């Protein structure tokens, strides 16, 4: 418990490589043992595939056991009793029928919130800003399905006030409402949140086709959710930023990378276009050829480590994404810690087999990651 006492007090990007390792390695070791004790499927992994029993601590991040994030779809990866679960997050099911289930207890949920606050306020300041959500309120109608999209919106709406949902239940842009909202707060910084694809499809495309321009020069836009669909249409981050700046005047556009399996410890993009690991998380890049760690500047499979997940064994996960560590402590933006780029999804394997409808959901899926 004491481990976590001071972690949110400093700026989330204050620790350099050496200090960070000293800080998170014992925590990750502690979590590994905790989940080993509390989560049966996780203990099987460790018993069969790792030898952790004699380690007092890990010598480096690369020693922390990790497993593919897909296992949250097929097994009960939970380290607390059912009664302690206050919230279950699920990934939004798209093409894949199986969804990830992430069980949060009070403490983990609180840690996630604090982490997110620490990260976001370092970008937009501590004050609650008037907030536009480029999504529809109808997402909350079905509370039984607490989707990643809904969780994302709820999580981020804490940073704003007088929330305005710009899309109606048919995903149509409420242009008149939006304009009068902008007018109302013309002298203030407005915080805008949305998912990358939705912003492009239901906000930018609508502005473009109806030949409308907005005056949001003073706004800060935060978006995440992945680029898969946009990449298919050759929309890069630069194209995205330029297009939004052109139609809405927004200058400050920040992308984040995160996943429902590690809510809270998201990776924010800085003004130089790199994602940054905050103090309480880090990343490694693995070589698919032998799963060793790759040096900086080499692209490979992204592994994310976070000290937040206590109620489920999600502190060290192999993602389905390709990334490259661009450096540590040396980004021009001044933030300490690892900074990296994302190159997109691992290409899906062609499944050859006698069976063409075989459920391959547990293998690489096309699931879109939100939050």
């Amino acid at each position, binding site marked *: 418990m004491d481990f976590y006492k001071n972690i949110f007090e400093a700026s989330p990007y204050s620790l350099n490589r050496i200090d960070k390792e000293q800080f998170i390695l014992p925590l990750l070791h502690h979590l590994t043992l905790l989940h080993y004790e509390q989560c049966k*499927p*996780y203990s*099987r*992994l460790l018993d*069969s*595939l790792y030898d952790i029993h004699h380690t007092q601590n890990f010598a480096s991040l690369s020693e922390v056991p990790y*497993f*593919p994030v*897909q*296992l949250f779809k*097929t*097994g009960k990866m939970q380290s607390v009793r059912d009664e302690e679960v206050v919230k279950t997050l699920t990934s939004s099911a798209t093409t894949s029928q199986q969804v990830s289930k992430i069980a949060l207890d009070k403490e983990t949920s609180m840690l996630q919130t604090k982490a997110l606050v620490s990260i976001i306020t370092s970008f937009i300041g501590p004050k609650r800003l008037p907030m536009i959500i480029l999504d529809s309120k109808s997402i909350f109608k079905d509370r039984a399905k607490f989707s990643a999209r809904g969780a994302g919106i709820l999580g981020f709406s804490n940073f704003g006030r007088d929330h305005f949902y710009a899309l109606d239940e048919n995903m149509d842009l409420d242009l008149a409402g939006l304009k009068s909202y902008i007018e109302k707060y013309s002298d203030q910084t407005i915080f805008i949140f949305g998912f990358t694809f939705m912003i492009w499809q239901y906000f930018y495309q609508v502005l473009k086709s109806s030949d409308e321009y907005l005056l949001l020069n003073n706004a800060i836009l935060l978006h995440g959710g992945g680029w898969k669909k946009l990449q298919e249409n050759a929309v890069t981050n630069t194209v995205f930023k330029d297009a939004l700046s052109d139609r809405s005047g927004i200058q400050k556009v920040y992308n984040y990378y995160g996943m429902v399996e590690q809510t809270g410890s998201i990776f924010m993009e800085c003004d130089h276009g790199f994602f940054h690991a905050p103090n309480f998380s880090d990343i490694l890049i693995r070589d*698919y*050829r*032998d*799963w060793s760690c790759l040096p900086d500047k080499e692209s490979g*499979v992204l592994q994310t480590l976070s000290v937040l997940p206590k109620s489920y064994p999600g502190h060290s996960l*192999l993602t*389905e994404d390709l990334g490259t560590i661009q450096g540590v402590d040396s980004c021009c933006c001044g933030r300490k810690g690892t900074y990296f780029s994302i190159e997109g999804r*691992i*290409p*899906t*394997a*062609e*499944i*050859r*087999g*006698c*069976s*063409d*409808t*075989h*459920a391959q959901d*547990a*293998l*690489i899926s096309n699931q879109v990651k939100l939050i």
Partner: protein
Amino acid sequence: MNVTSIAPFYLPDIPLQNACPGQFFSQSLGRPFNDQAISFLHKLSRHLLAHSEINKYPELVALAFWLRKSNINKIYRDFQKILGENEIVSPRGVAFHVSPSNVDGIFIYSWALSLLSGNINIIRVSQNLSEQQNFLFSALQTIMQSNDHHDIKKSNIVLTYPHDAEISSFFTERSDIRILWGGDETVQLFRSLPSQPTTKDISFADKSSHCIIDSKTYNSVNLEKANEIARLFYNDAYWFSQMACSSPRTVYFVGNVDECRVSSERFWRNLAEELQRRETVDTMPNAMNKFIFLHRSVCEGLAISSHSSLNYNKPTVVRVSDAHHVNMETHCGGGFFFETFLEDLSQLGPLVQPKDQTLSYFGFDKRNLRNFASKLGKRGLHRIVPIGQSLDFSTTWDGYVLLTELTQRISIL
């Protein structure tokens, strides 16, 4: 309701009624093993073999050899042997084939047998054709379009359409026999569509296959023979990226523990060398799928005693004491093997699963294998074949004597 005809002619997006008009189903049937059919398949074989491109696809070379006249005549002779003295054989009628998406060409075998039976054939292939399938179909188009095979052109059609119950029902309602490749879900799906009371189904459900090696014998073979075994096993396992029903997934080593250790070590080392010779390495998705499958299996409770390091240029080998608990339905393919040490052949019996299809072997004599198989009851296994022959198509498949299924007999007393 539109479909895309692939052979005899490529006609994209045409109305179903044009592709298969009423008279298609009511035309006269061929005589089983008529010369037309045999010479058609022979020409197809020659045409395939004449293209140097075929060397990229060893599984299609095997198919082309199988289609040769000499082989077909042998199949005919074998078939005649099982006909009763008082029986004559006639076609069954309209055959509807559903091909699997990616085991290129496997359905050609069952289609060829149906063609030889004299049936009218509709073959539904998947929407996304592989390189191999494109190669096959262009050969098929050429031969079908030649003037010599008018009857075959008239009574056979290869087509594709998106999954659509209405179109599929149109075919299944008119079929006398449905040949369903594609695994459990496809089989269930098509069987649920309307049919005639007399419609017969040949269902190829999900299967998995294994290999058994007598350690003592294997340990005593010279290097040349060991390399040969590696080559044969490579063909069995890697031709379809280990995703065919007949691709081996578990290797059982039989002997005392020391013998098994030695042979296991030698076997996988030789296979790794064979991979190197063939320049076979895991692609990134392959490697990722193996990584996921290993972790998932363990997570779900599979007890493993050891595992090889995951390396893109080596087979992945996981030792289990009881292969029972392997969830084969989620198997990732691409060179992921389980191994188990057994003291003798009889220990395999209880491990055989209902979904097991082929057992390939090295170092056992047939008498022992017959004895072993005779005690299996209904537990599983359809074929026990020498190592290297796992993928060889046989006219008896998954327990079906295909020519018997595809024809009917009239007894005259």
